[in-house]
């Protein structure tokens, strides 16, 4: 049986601050298959981004193990991790996604350059991806000439150009309006499914989890529950989480809880 695209086993990350120890991520275990798109949700400080950083081989867990395509990240040197990232992992960040002085096409091709794969086929693939994402007219535009949504779509194209096993998106819609946010996530999810990648998207916006196959809810560093987006999301509305998710999505009014929304 083929290895899972991603497998985490009791992943823990602790920080020492001023004599006390804080568990940012606490014994997280789950696995992800190719063709699966997962939403990672939870309130601020629940450990989502720290977990994402560890999955991306940017941060070492204090304990536990992470394997992508069966390869244990813990056994790799920093240099090997950098190489692994540019070959097996695709990224979309919240902001500062693109190199400001490269055009949309050059930004996507950058990964090919880094992997020494900028041949005719690679360049054609980059162009096709951007066309697929509706950016045909913007191939040679600089990031500052593109809207926020267009920039995120370029970032999605870049995250897929190296045909990665795992696509990670850290709040890719944070700076977008609702309509564009839906478009971007829909596109990302569709491409993950079509191209048989494994995708994880960190988001605060529960309206976007409809495009995911599973929703992992984190709370205080651990996986609180894993549910289907088809499930009633109000299950996440315990007093702690309720502060962190949009009330309109959960069907709660501020007046009912008496607490503010962040």
């Amino acid at each position: 049986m083929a290895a899972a695209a991603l497998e985490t086993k009791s992943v823990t990350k602790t920080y020492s601050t001023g004599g006390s120890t804080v568990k940012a991520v606490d014994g997280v275990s789950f696995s992800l298959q190719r063709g699966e798109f997962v939403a990672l949700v939870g309130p601020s400080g629940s450990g989502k981004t720290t977990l994402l950083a560890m999955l991306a081989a940017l941060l070492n867990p204090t304990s536990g193990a992470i394997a992508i395509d069966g390869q244990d990240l813990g056994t790799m040197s920093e240099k090997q991790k950098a190489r692994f990232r540019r070959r097996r992992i695709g990224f979309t960040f919240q902001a500062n996604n693109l190199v400001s002085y490269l055009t949309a096409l050059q930004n996507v091709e950058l990964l090919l350059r880094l992997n020494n794969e900028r041949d005719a086929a690679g360049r054609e693939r980059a162009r096709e991806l951007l066309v697929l994402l509706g950016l045909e007219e913007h191939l040679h535009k600089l990031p500052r000439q593109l809207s926020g949504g267009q920039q995120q779509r370029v970032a999605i194209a870049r995250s897929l150009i190296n045909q990665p096993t795992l696509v990670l998106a850290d709040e890719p819609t944070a700076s977008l309006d609702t309509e564009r946010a839906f478009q971007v996530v829909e596109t990302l999810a569709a491409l993950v499914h079509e191209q048989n990648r494994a995708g994880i998207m960190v988001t605060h916006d529960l309206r976007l989890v409809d495009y995911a196959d599973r929703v992992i809810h984190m709370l205080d560093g651990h996986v609180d529950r894993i549910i289907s987006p088809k499930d009633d999301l109000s299950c996440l509305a315990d007093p702690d989480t309720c502060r962190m998710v949009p009330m309109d999505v959960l069907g709660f009014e501020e007046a009912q809880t008496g607490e503010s929304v962040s």
Partner: protein
Amino acid sequence: MSTAIHLALTEIWRNRGRFLLFSMVVALITLLVLFIAALGEGLGAGNREYLEKLNADLIAYQDTARLSIASSRIGCEKRRSIRSLEGVRDAGAVGFSSASILLAGEPETLDISLIGVEPGKPGEPPVVRGRGLLRSGADEAILDRTVAAVTNLRVGDRVTLRTTQGNENEFYTLEVIGISDSRKYSLRPSVIVPIVTWDKVRPQAGKPTGEANPACNVVAVQLEDPSEVESMGQFLEARVDRIEVVDRQTAYENTPGYSEQQATLNTQNGFALLIGALVIGGFFQIQTMQKVPQIGMLKAIGTPNSIVATATIIQIIAITVLGVLVGSLVTMGVALVFPANIPIVFELRSGAMAVGSILLIGPIGGLVSIRYSLRVEPLTALGLD
């Protein structure tokens, strides 16, 4: 490497206004450094040229003069003693003073160094046109190239010198018999005359005595074996009473103000280079700080540190080289229209050293920013660091 070059050059091209502006700052620093170097060379040459080119290995001073040519007096007897010593090929008296040349049809005069030498002895420069001095009391003169160029005098013409003797201005007309290369002394071009003529023409408190063997300032000594400069210097001091003997370099380094002047200019040059390093370093440091999120993102997607560092180095080198190139060209252009009375000499060695120093300070100044960019954590892409 090709990715680093692509990133570096694309960034320069997309931000060409900013980078060009900064290149111009480097060009201005280059201009400043080259001019200070040329001024140092010009002032230095103006002071030392005659002594530096002197056809002698050692120079003998009166021991109490403390290597001051103006204070030194050496008489005929000592010259003879020096000349007779074993290991000395030849020795010649050299006297230094100043005079003015009357320029034909102009009220202005040209201030010159009047140098008296013994015809055919060490101290007399070789001529590039005409002939050398023949008789010690003859009313003849060799002009150095600068005097000839400024006065338009040629071999066979007559030159009139004005000096002050007693309370009177005295005028002496000499025949130009030769032109030598440039032989500036004390920042003035030179007229070389026989030592007896020099003693008659030079400024003095009273009327000239007309001595057949006048006292001179120093004695230029040629050795049989020029490699024995040090031991022969000691030998001469031991064998001839009350003289101090040094080589040419020590002699010109002890001309009044020479060392101080060179130290001042070297310090200015050092500061200009230091400022250059700080400016270049500051520019790239600010640029790197502005790019921290982007560098973090590049590292997060797997860009190796070597590519990030190489791209920065390529940019520093490209900007510095362009700046130095433009600065050197502007310097050459400005030098062509610079007033002739400013002692600026563009010499290949000092110019190359100045340019080399600026090319070096670019990467040195940029080291901090390279180090800074290497320390950017890829986690900054996720807002963690």
